């Protein structure tokens, strides 16, 4: 019969590829129990339900422990507990119940940033996480249409309640100012509006808050990077040079603000013609991947240009929910787990500790 120590030593051979440490020292193995008959059971607690190596971890754990002498069976319970970004002495005053904040930015407009943000949020939700989506695009809010949630938010106890759709908690300026009237704001007002959507909205307990930023490297992005310690930022671009060049600028801006780049996402990467089946690369291909390599940041994946993605965005159902088997939906799910894995790494970072005497 193996001792707990021997079992943990066996499991310590499993390394988390993103965190670079073994799963035992990361505290992922819990509630270890060995029955008198030699049945070993334990909980394997991942840092995200969207873990890209979940199945591999489970079979590795079963194999490692099963190979020990005297073990008659192995029960692995796979769970996940998203850890807050950054180890800090006290919880953040802004967004206190939110564990991870993920910004989606682009630099250039029209590259599908909101589509990516909505589908990443939906994919993280599908994996089992509690997810919110804040649409910080004051001038061109797209989230209400893309999620079929064109309703006015309710209020309670002086706070706005997020709108719920597809299991997501949503807040957009499009909810607060519906209809066809534009929001005409100067820069400082944009900053105030974004702060209000974080402070005055009762987001509750969330594993991930995905923030859909407007294009550009100005007020909105700067306000956000100043108001909350962002876990990281994922940059969306299309493959052609004119888009990747601007995406690089956005990424460098966040680097200067000490926000970790989670990586680059290439949208509209290719198009498969429904009549001839031929693959067209309308906006070129691979631009984001080579830019990521040049900048030394992860390349998170490529999403095809599909009519279905656009149709579903217009009818208000994210493609990862409406057509989970499509190439587009599969790409979003894969990218979501890459983002989640990169995000987990940030949980083990420490913000500077300041002490005034």
């Amino acid at each position, binding site marked *: 019969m193996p001792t707990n120590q021997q079992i943990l030593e066996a499991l310590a051979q499993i390394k988390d590829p993103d965190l670079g440490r073994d799963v035992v020292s990361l505290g992922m193995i819990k509630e270890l129990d060995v029955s008198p008959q030699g049945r070993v059971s334990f909980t394997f607690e991942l840092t995200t339900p969207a873990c890209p190596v979940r199945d591999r971890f489970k079979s590795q754990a079963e194999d490692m422990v099963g190979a020990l002498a005297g073990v008659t069976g192995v029960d692995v319970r796979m769970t996940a507990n998203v850890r807050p970004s*950054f180890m800090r002495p006290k919880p953040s005053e802004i967004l206190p119940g939110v564990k991870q904040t993920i910004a989606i930015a682009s630099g250039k407009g029209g590259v599908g940033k909101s589509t990516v943000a909505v589908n990443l949020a939906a994919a993280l939700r599908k994996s089992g996480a509690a997810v919110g989506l804040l649409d910080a695009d004051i001038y061109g809010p797209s989230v209400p249409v893309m999620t079929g949630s064109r309703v006015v938010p309710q209020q309670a106890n002086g706070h706005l309640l997020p709108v719920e759709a597809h299991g997501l908690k949503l807040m957009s300026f499009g909810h607060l100012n519906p209809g066809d009237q534009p929001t005409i704001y100067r820069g400082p007002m944009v900053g105030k509006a974004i702060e209000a959507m974080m402070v005055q909205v009762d987001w509750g307990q969330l594993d991930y808050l995905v923030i859909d930023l407007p294009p550009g490297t100005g007020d909105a992005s700067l306000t956000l*990077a*100043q*108001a*909350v*310690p*962002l876990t990281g930022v994922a940059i969306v671009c299309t493959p052609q040079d004119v888009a990747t060049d601007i995406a690089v600028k956005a990424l460098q801006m966040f680097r*200067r*603000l*000490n*926000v970790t780049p989670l990586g680059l996402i290439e949208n509209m990467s290719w198009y498969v013609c429904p009549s001839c089946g031929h693959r067209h690369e309308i906006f070129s291909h691979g631009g984001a991947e080579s830019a990521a390599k040049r900048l030394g940041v992860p390349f998170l994946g490529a999403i095809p240009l599909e009519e279905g993605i656009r149709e579903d965005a217009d009818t208000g159902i994210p493609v990862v929910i409406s057509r989970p088997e499509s190439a587009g939906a599969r790409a979003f799910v894969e990218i979501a787990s890459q983002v989640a894995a990169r995000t987990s790494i940030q949980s083990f*970072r*420490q*913000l*500077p*500790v*300041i*002490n*005034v*005497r």
Partner: protein
Amino acid sequence: MDIAWEDGAHTTYTGEQLRWACPCAECRGEAGAPGRLSRVTSLSPEELRIRDVVLVGQYALQIAFESGHNTGIYTFGHLRRLVA
């Protein structure tokens, strides 16, 4: 003020040192106009005493002094260079 950094380094600052290093436009000057810190030779004690420090995102500190001056956003890089 003491700071324990992510890389394990520790740095210490006096209020006086930080006040004179204030990076804000009023103190440094802008658009060719000289700032306040190049025009004065001494600052009163309440201008040098730190009242409050707030983390700005994850790249800087906003330091408020007893005089009410709080417009300086000290980036981590700036703070590290001050003691280098």
